[in-house]
């Protein structure tokens, strides 16, 4: 994505991606108790993108999309993430896919649809990418904001699911206070449509 990065670490790239995604139009519905929350929720949108590792040794973000295969009158807020990124600077097949990024208009956990999507992607991409001797697992991330400032919402955290470790996590905090993680549970898959969530 022009003007984004590149970044030397995935955590720097993630922290830079969060405000970019949340500041898109209708990306957050604000606090649930706030006035007009229901209207905000109804008009809210989801955006998604890949965070990928390039042969140049950097993390980049693909162009954001708000495309979905659903009708405008469908109640679901969905986003259709392409399987691959076309980055003309690098040969096809040379990119490593590490984070499927999107926003949740509210501080909502990752959905069954999110879990199904990332394991479906994992079966065509690598579950774990080797980056400079370090292992980076494929995962899905949903950023959220608790702010009622819809034009400049704060990045208050994100939910993450890492299929290869089974971990369902919630990250909160910030640069000043430091980031903290909660492991909310684990997901164990038996087959494509059959899995168990063990909550902590």
């Amino acid at each position, binding site marked *: 994505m022009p003007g984004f990065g590149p970044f030397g670490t*995935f955590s720097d790239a993630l922290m830079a991606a969060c405000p970019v995604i949340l500041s898109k139009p209708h990306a957050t519905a604000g606090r649930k108790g706030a006035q007009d929350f229901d209207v905000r929720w109804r008009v809210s949108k989801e955006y998604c993108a890949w965070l990928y590792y390039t042969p140049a040794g950097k993390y980049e973000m693909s162009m954001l999309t708000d495309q979905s295969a659903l009708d405008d009158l469908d109640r679901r807020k969905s986003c259709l993430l392409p399987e691959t990124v076309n980055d003309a600077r690098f040969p096809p097949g040379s990119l490593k896919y590490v984070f499927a990024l999107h926003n949740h208009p509210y501080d909502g956990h990752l959905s*069954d649809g999110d879990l199904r999507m990332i394991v479906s992607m994992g079966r065509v991409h690598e*579950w774990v990418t080797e980056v400079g001797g370090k292992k980076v697992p494929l995962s899905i991330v949903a950023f959220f904001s608790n702010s009622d400032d819809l034009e400049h919402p704060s990045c208050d955290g994100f939910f993450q699911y890492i299929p290869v470790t*089974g971990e369902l996590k919630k990250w909160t905090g910030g640069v000043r206070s430091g980031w903290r993680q909660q492991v909310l549970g684990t997901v164990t898959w038996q087959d494509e449509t059959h899995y168990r969530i063990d909550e*902590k």
Partner: protein
Amino acid sequence: MKRTHSILASALVLTGCLRASAPPPTKVEEDASIAFPAFFSQPAVSLGTEGTVYELDGDTLRALTVAARDLLPPQDPHVSCGSRWESQQYRVVRQGDLIFIRIDEDPKACGRTHPALDSGASYAIHRDGRILRRLVDGQPDVAKPEDAGVPSTPGEPGSASPDALNDGPSPFLPRSWQDAGSPAPAPLP
């Protein structure tokens, strides 16, 4: 004849206006004490087996219809592929007078391989047809406890827990997804 055309044109315009507006909010009693079951924790019995006779009771059929009508737009010829009734997978769990329904977009129905993010919704419907709870993917689940009680630890944002990323196949994914070997049974909770 002219009048008929005029009425038809008005009806079409009105239909167009209706499609352009937001879906009418269906009254949902939102009983937060109702917790959704784990729809995917066990294999579902599929109605797709050829030569087998299935029976569907009227309450379940009505509940499916109520949920589909609430979630999906009017089924006219212009509706997007992913929002058609026939482009969804439906799961049903009965618990007493409650009929739990999970609706997920089926990517194969629209010629895709991967599901979209947040492309499902769960419903709790009374056998009399009332929607008691609706939870669209991405919405907060008010019936679930807050995460505040779960201990937190500092870490590099986005990283796996240090002791969770091991060498060898993951016990959380079928072996057949990770290599050409035979699937390994998942660990018990």
